[in-house]
């Protein structure tokens, strides 16, 4: 249940932690899934209640420094030493110790009872979680650094090469930012974006898609792009051949089921959009020997000499003009309208709907 009201300011859990006063805080698809009751119950034991949502945050430290928050709550944030094997690899999103340390259970800020979240006036963060925002980057752009970092991570996990045909399924925030990330970090031979709404189509093109297609045309167009063979079965098509790598950015069963049928045998499907408890026909995955891999969060990127995903995202942000994807902005008090708007963002021509908390500090 989502409740709007006054809650005590989160306490600093340990020395070194700092207060962040959110300026803008995005409404993510995962937030909408949680509010709508569509989120997978898998996440339940990884969450502590009650929590203040909001993990896409640009804000200010008490000294006025503008920062974005890297919300993963891994070993380092929790003060656990030695680090678990995953955190040692630079993958705090996969931390084994999300139940340990001075704060409650939680994968991320925004899903932890002790940290507060971006949809509040104050949250608390470990120094390793905050990244200074360059002056040249506006708040409207910076609020998208967190999802952009997710997509940079996804692109690097996909690992497309210049010989690959890549499909990005879905053109919400994650889909569009994946298009941008793939284009910038792992440019393929051909990048096809699947977008439903006119604004999404336009943005996908601007962000670097070589071709933008409608969801209904995906088999026809991918077949052509890859010179595959298309077979039409009882109620579904499949390609013999197909895309080398598909980024599934919708998180729905129908989309994932299509992805595994138009990605070539031996190819890779990267699940970027947050899926729920989805029913997918595994026959294609089995028969095509697909690599289906998740891409969750960020950390440090081995394919970029171990550099922080957030830093990579911050560096690349000016080129992407992230600010064009942000808006409309709502005050916290208008949260019902904001959430309703976010739920229909694509249809309404919006990408990232966010809360503007600057008024709270005035």
């Amino acid at each position: 249940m989502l409740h709007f009201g006054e809650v005590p300011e989160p306490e600093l859990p340990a020395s070194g932690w700092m207060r962040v006063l959110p300026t803008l805080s995005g409404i993510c698809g995962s937030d909408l899934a949680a509010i709508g009751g569509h989120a997978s119950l898998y996440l339940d034991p990884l969450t502590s209640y009650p929590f203040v949502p909001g993990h896409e945050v640009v804000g200010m430290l008490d000294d006025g420094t503008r920062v974005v928050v890297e919300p993963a709550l891994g070993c380092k944030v929790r003060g656990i030493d030695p680090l678990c094997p995953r955190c040692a690899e630079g993958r705090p999103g996969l931390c084994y110790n999300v139940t340990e340390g001075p704060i409650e259970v939680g994968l991320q800020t925004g899903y932890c009872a002790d940290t507060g979240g971006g949809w509040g006036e104050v949250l608390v963060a470990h120094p390793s979680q905050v990244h200074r925002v360059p002056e040249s980057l506006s708040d409207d752009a910076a609020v998208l650094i967190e999802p952009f970092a997710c997509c940079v991570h996804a692109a690097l996990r996909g690992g497309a090469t210049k010989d690959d045909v890549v499909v990005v399924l879905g053109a919400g925030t994650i889909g569009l930012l994946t298009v941008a990330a793939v284009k910038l970090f792992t440019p393929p031979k051909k990048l096809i974006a699947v977008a439903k709404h006119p604004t999404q189509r336009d943005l996908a093109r601007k962000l670097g898609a070589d071709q933008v297609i409608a969801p209904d045309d995906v088999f026809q167009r991918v077949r052509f792009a890859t010179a595959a063979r298309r077979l039409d079965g009882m109620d579904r098509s499949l390609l013999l051949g197909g895309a080398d790598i598909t980024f599934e950015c919708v998180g729905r069963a129908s989309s994932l089921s299509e992805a595994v049928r138009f990605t070539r045998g031996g190819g890779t499907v990267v699940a970027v959009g947050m899926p729920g408890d989805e029913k997918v026909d595994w026959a294609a995955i089995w028969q095509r020997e697909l690599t289906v891999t998740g891409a969750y969060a960020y950390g440090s990127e081995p394919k970029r000499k171990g550099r922080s995903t957030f830093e990579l995202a911050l560096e690349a942000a000016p080129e992407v003009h992230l600010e064009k994807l942000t808006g409309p902005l709502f005050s916290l008090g208008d949260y019902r309208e904001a959430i309703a708007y976010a739920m229909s963002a694509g249809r309404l021509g919006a990408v990232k709907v966010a809360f503007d908390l600057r008024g709270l500090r005035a």
Partner: protein
Amino acid sequence: MLFHFGEGVRLEKLPLGSRIVYPPDPLEPIAHPERAIKRALGKPLEDDPLKSLLRRGMKLTIAFDDLSLPLPPMAAPDVRQLVMEEVIDMAAEAGVEDIHLIAALGLHRRMTADEVRHIVGDRIFTTFWPDRLYQHDGEDPDANVYIGKTAQGEEVTLHKRAAESDLVVYVNLTLVPMDGGHKSMATGLATYRGIRAHHNVKTLLGSRSYMNPPDSALHHSCIRQGQLIEDTVRVFHIETTVNNHAFPAIANFMQKRETDWTAQDQAMFLGMKQFTDLAPPAFKRNVFHAMRAPYGLTAVNAGQVDAVHDKTLEAVRKQISVSVEGQTDIVTLGVPYLGPYNVNAPMNPVLVVCMGIGYLFNFYRHKPVLRKGGVLILTHPCRYEFDAVQHPSYIDYYDEVLADTTDLVEIERKYEKRFAQDPWFVQLYRKSHAYHGAHPFYAHYWAAHGIDHAGDIIIVGGEREVVHRLGFKAATTLEDAFEMAEQTVGRHPSVTHLRMPPIMLCDVE
């Protein structure tokens, strides 16, 4: 004035003073086709009687035109059936046992068994299908041979069985002057390698028009290839022509001038208009495609290909030629539901271009009815509608190629080879009932001369987005189209409406 409008008809008003050109009435058919066929085979032109060419132990191949003509398909018995039955009877009498029949479909789609049966008749079908009656496969590397190059560098290929035969008898049905002659073998039994020699933008721009072989670079090329084929294999050519009786009784009003319509014709027209206005496209299509034309045989000639084809063209012109005095600023044409490449399928947008600006525009001799830089106005609903079985490459052509450019030279350079070699299109052409991957290119090239010649092309009643994708202008009504045409041809243009089908060839003086 009646305008064909895809699977429908429209009544339109033309400006005062407009000229209407109607096709000639159907000629009286030959009363006894079987006798005429026997006579032609017994007394061929510049060749020995067929009987004398047949001998025991020989390898005989009979090749025949596919279902792309006549249009609409001919009511049974198809004239090709009558000819082939006679040839086979003669061969049997001579003791020929090794007989194969090949549908010479070039890069057209494979026909269904029923479609083949309709052309050859039950007797032949039952006896020969599928081992000795089959369809040409231009992508089977084992079934085609490379013969050589013409003096102009055109490569020539031929179906292997035909190339290795002691005698090839080609059975043709010529509906329009473009058909028949050397083109039958040079395209019908060829591969992409051979066909691309003349099915290209340059050749089609140099064919003015390809409905008049002497002025057609396409035909000159086919003749050169055909001569090389004749050096390789002995060919006996049989060509037939039919009259203009293109519509069954139910649509007989389409054969007539509107002023000649009887009360019954008017009632039939109103009934059809009501039906086509209300019925969904797929239902209308089924009804229209089930129509069979009561064509009557007007000529049958056999023997040496050039001699035969001269006579054939003479017979065709006798049926379809119309004398037209001078050119006009605007030509209007109603594009019907059917063209050579959409039998039992919707006429997709690329085929609308092929039919309207390709075939119908090119039905002229000497010079086009439309003056250079004039406005061509077509009526057709021009929907985004494709048959996924017959026209898979057309879908990609429309969605990928036309989204990029409508410049035919660029299209040819940039895309044709890729489509032609796409393994899926190759497979669908070979195993399903799909046109070859290169076919949408050819259908579009067919319109190269018309597009180049017209100052503007307007499609009335077409889906705006589709018409624009094709590179033309869209108008809601004919009146709007005339108003739009003013920008190109001025305020008081001369107008000619070519009321086809049935087809006609305009001898423009």
